[in-house]
């Protein structure tokens, strides 16, 4: 079972990674968006770090609070997307199954939420291009009985591949889509930062 401690470690690790990479994420967004993705996520994760952990008895309630915090502080596209991911992830944690199965299903729930909100499909040069493959691989690994650690490591690798695949894509969703063909050649900022989230999970949840 996903403990509160592990969930907290995940959030802290991700916050650290975002602090470290905020400038780079913003610069990616400057090239094909509006130069705020790094500062948006940093504002949100700073607020998440400030959540009084002791008030949340289990992983689900803490991650739900993190999702609400992101929704309330980030704004723009990332706020609803990242927020929804955590809210749906948290809401799926009471499903039955071993840890790998539960976490893969929770990731699926998060992805479904993101797609419902943003209506993007793979190939649109968004967060979905990294998260989609990551979820598919996690589900596959879990169904094959892999450990949570192996499941998340494989998912993180798939996310990274998906992220890199966004480089040549022409954006069809989000602000980058206004650039048309000129959006090709730059890695999608959201795909980049969601990959960091899966990598962080692999480091902390298992």
């Amino acid at each position, binding site marked *: 079972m996903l403990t509160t401690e592990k969930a907290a470690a995940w959030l802290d690790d991700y916050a650290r990674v975002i602090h470290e990479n905020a400038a780079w994420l913003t610069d990616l967004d*400057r090239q094909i968006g509006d130069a705020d993705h790094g500062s*948006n996520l940093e504002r949100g994760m700073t607020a998440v770090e400030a959540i009084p952990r002791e008030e949340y008895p289990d992983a689900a309630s803490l991650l739900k609070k993190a999702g609400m915090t992101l929704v309330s502080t980030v*704004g*723009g596209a990332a*706020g609803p997307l990242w927020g929804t991911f955590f809210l749906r992830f948290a809401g799926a944690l009471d499903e039955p199954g071993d840890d790998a199965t539960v976490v893969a299903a929770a990731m699926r729930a998060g992805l479904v939420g993101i797609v419902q909100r943003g209506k993007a499909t793979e190939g649109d040069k968004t967060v979905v291009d990294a998260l989609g493959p990551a979820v598919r691989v996690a589900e596959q690994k879990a169904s094959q009985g892999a450990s949570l650690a192996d499941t998340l490591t494989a998912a993180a690798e798939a996310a990274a591949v998906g992220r890199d695949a966004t480089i040549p894509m022409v954006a069809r*969703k989000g*602000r980058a889509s206004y650039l048309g063909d000129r959006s090709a050649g730059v890695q999608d900022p959201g795909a980049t930062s969601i990959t960091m989230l899966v990598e962080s999970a692999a480091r902390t949840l298992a």
Partner: protein
Amino acid sequence: MKKLINDPRDVVAEALVGLALAHPDRLRVDHDNAVVYRAEPTRPGKVALVSGGGSGHEPLHGGFVGLGMLDAACAGQVFTSPVPDQVLAATTTVDAGAGVLHIAKNYTGDVMNFDMASELAAESGIQVESVVVDDDVAVEDSLHTAGRRGTGLTVLLEKLVGAAAEQGRDLDAVTTLARSINDRGRSMGVALTSCTVPEVGRPTFDLAEDEIEVGVGIHGEPGRERRSLTTAAEVAQMLVDPVLDDLGTVSARERAAIVMLNGMGATPLLELYLMFGEVAKLLAARGIVPTRTLVGSYITSLEMAGCSLTVLEADEELLTLWDAPVNTPGLRWGA
């Protein structure tokens, strides 16, 4: 970056302090939520209008709160949509039993944050409808993309729908009107210089001394093409043609329109009037009669220089709504 500001992070909050101090008779500001309200609560039974978006487009939206226009405006950070909490607070506060219309501009972030707020409001039993303005012809519209951006038409729509709500029309009628206005209006902009987001500290894009960005968005998003600086007459043509082509004005008879020639923030009124003269000539040549006009800076992009044209075909109903009293810091007549 040369701006009259203190800490770049405090720009929006401090501007709201000034707004509240400048208009204590007409506005009330909830500084915790960064929401601008009318000084008086919504008249019972009136449909309430809530708009909002990133800051940096002043007077839009906070300057359009007041009699005959908005009931509340949610101020996001500069060029960043407000969060659902703000929109939910505004919606809950202004609902007077007849429901609330959300007016958002078509940007992914704005649409998603307003959607979340309206879901939450609906859960708490408030009737909420939404209209998403997408009038900018610079961006090709398609089911497979984010679609056209929302720009200048938002100003006209907030005025007209505000008048309809003031008349006592119900939420369905107000929503239908808002959508039909969105169908009948189009905009196109051009930038002479970039804007600089305070927290970023350097220009959003670079334009050479002899270049203009045709079809620019209100956040400094790129446009259709970069062209050489040319005469006002030629720039007018670059705005009028795509707008009218998209509206499909091929009919021979004359048609009335509400026309806005909008300054992007740093363009002086002298130039805007000169441009309006050029635009009016071209519109006349294509049978469009600017029956009502706005010339000034109503939806801006910080200190960007340039202008945008909005044309809304107007029947008698719209003209009557346009002439109805409005009393906001940014737009005022008949009151």
